[in-house]
């Protein structure tokens, strides 16, 4: 059984068709990258998969369950989602962990794997570099231990070494299904499936 089944997905913004009749499936534990030039709808597709943006046509199923208003809450409870460019109102990582009820022991483990000290959770977001923030947020959502991981450009602020560490971390989690957008050939090379838009 597929973890995710996408059938005939179409999205149009104004007169611009982003994608049309897009179909694919993702098996449990598979790591998937959505690639394409800027403006081709990678982030939009990820948002549709998260139920944030409504498609104009098509269906999405998680397992056997159709993703709609009745099932959104239970399906989302199995997802962890990291978009780009969040302006946090929370002052630091600790406050964010409390808001999300994340197990800090699990966060620490991921932080360690991504070469960050746990004390970074006490640093205000405004004092973190782009790479530190991205690694910390990824660690926090991995701490949720949810089976489906949706990541928007997870390596956009990372250097080669941090990217390698992130790949090592996520690829050691065989039960986690990853769907990510990417511009990074190294990331795409490691993925089981690449969807080109």
């Amino acid at each position: 059984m597929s973890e995710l089944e996408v059938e005939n997905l179409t999205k149009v913004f104004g007169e611009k068709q982003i994608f049309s009749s897009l179909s694919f499936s993702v098996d449990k534990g598979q790591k998937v990258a959505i690639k394409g030039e800027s403006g081709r709808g990678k982030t939009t597709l990820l948002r549709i998969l998260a139920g944030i943006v409504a498609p104009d046509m098509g269906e999405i199923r998680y397992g056997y369950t159709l993703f709609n208003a009745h099932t959104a809450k239970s399906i989302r409870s199995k997802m962890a989602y990291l978009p780009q460019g969040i302006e946090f109102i929370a002052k630091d990582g600790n406050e964010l962990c409390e808001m999300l009820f994340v197990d800090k022991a699990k966060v620490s483990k991921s932080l360690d794997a991504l070469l960050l000290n746990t004390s970074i959770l006490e640093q205000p977001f405004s004092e973190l570099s782009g790479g530190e923030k991205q690694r910390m947020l990824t660690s926090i959502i991995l701490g949720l231990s949810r089976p489906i991981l949706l990541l928007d450009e997870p390596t956009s602020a990372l250097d080669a070494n941090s990217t390698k560490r992130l790949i090592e971390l996520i690829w050691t989690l065989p039960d986690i299904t990853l769907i990510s957008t990417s511009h990074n050939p190294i990331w795409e090379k490691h993925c089981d499936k690449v969807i080109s838009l």
Partner: protein
Amino acid sequence: MSPIQDISWVNLLLSFVIIAIPLAGFWYYRVGLTKSTLIAIARMTLQLSAVAIYLEFIFEMNNPFLNLGWVLIMILVGVYTTLKRSNLNIKTLAVPLIISAITSLIIVDAFFLGAIIQLPYIFESQYFIPISGMILGNAMNHNIVGLNAYFEGLSNNQNLYYFLLINGKNKKTAINPFIVQAIRKALNPMIANTSVMGLISLPGMMTGQILGGNSPSTAIRYQIMIMLAIFTGCSINLMLSIILSNKVTFDKMDRISTTVLAKSKKGLR
């Protein structure tokens, strides 16, 4: 205490002369507020003159339906102004805001006019209209700031909302930071103003009562009561406005509805 010194119509007209000073400043710095200032002052003068005539009539009649009708008009104008100033969808949000204003007014008027002042007749125009008006006027100003902050926050930082919605436990977790920010932005100035009341600001109602010949002691008791009424009314009105607006702000998938946000604020693509 000496009786109040009346202002003649000629002297009142003369008082407009002093506006020339700020207008000269606006002109010098090219602020671009001259036209809107003149329109605002003209409107204020006309509106207050009309209200004076109408209030004379209303006070004389002292009819509960007439008084309620007048307060209802104040609510409708307040809600319209709030939504227009906040650049929000009037059709969608008018009903939640009207319900919020009516509910907060019922609670505050019933408590202060009924239980505290212990009026035998709660719709007594001399109390019901000015006190309701002060609460509604202040609530409108704070609602403009609060709703603007809430919807601007949701509109400009949609990624944060969806991050918290999906990774958090529920929608409550996701909207809570935006509500906190809106309430803080709207009510912080009022809290600051309340804390220096009497020291660096002498409130209008108290000044009015003293000028009207009342003792400072009575004026201050009324002022304390009206400050509590305004603070409670504004807070209830803002929180209810956000809670009730949320019913039409999100769709069944908890997505932010783009129809609520006016044309200048865009939906997520």
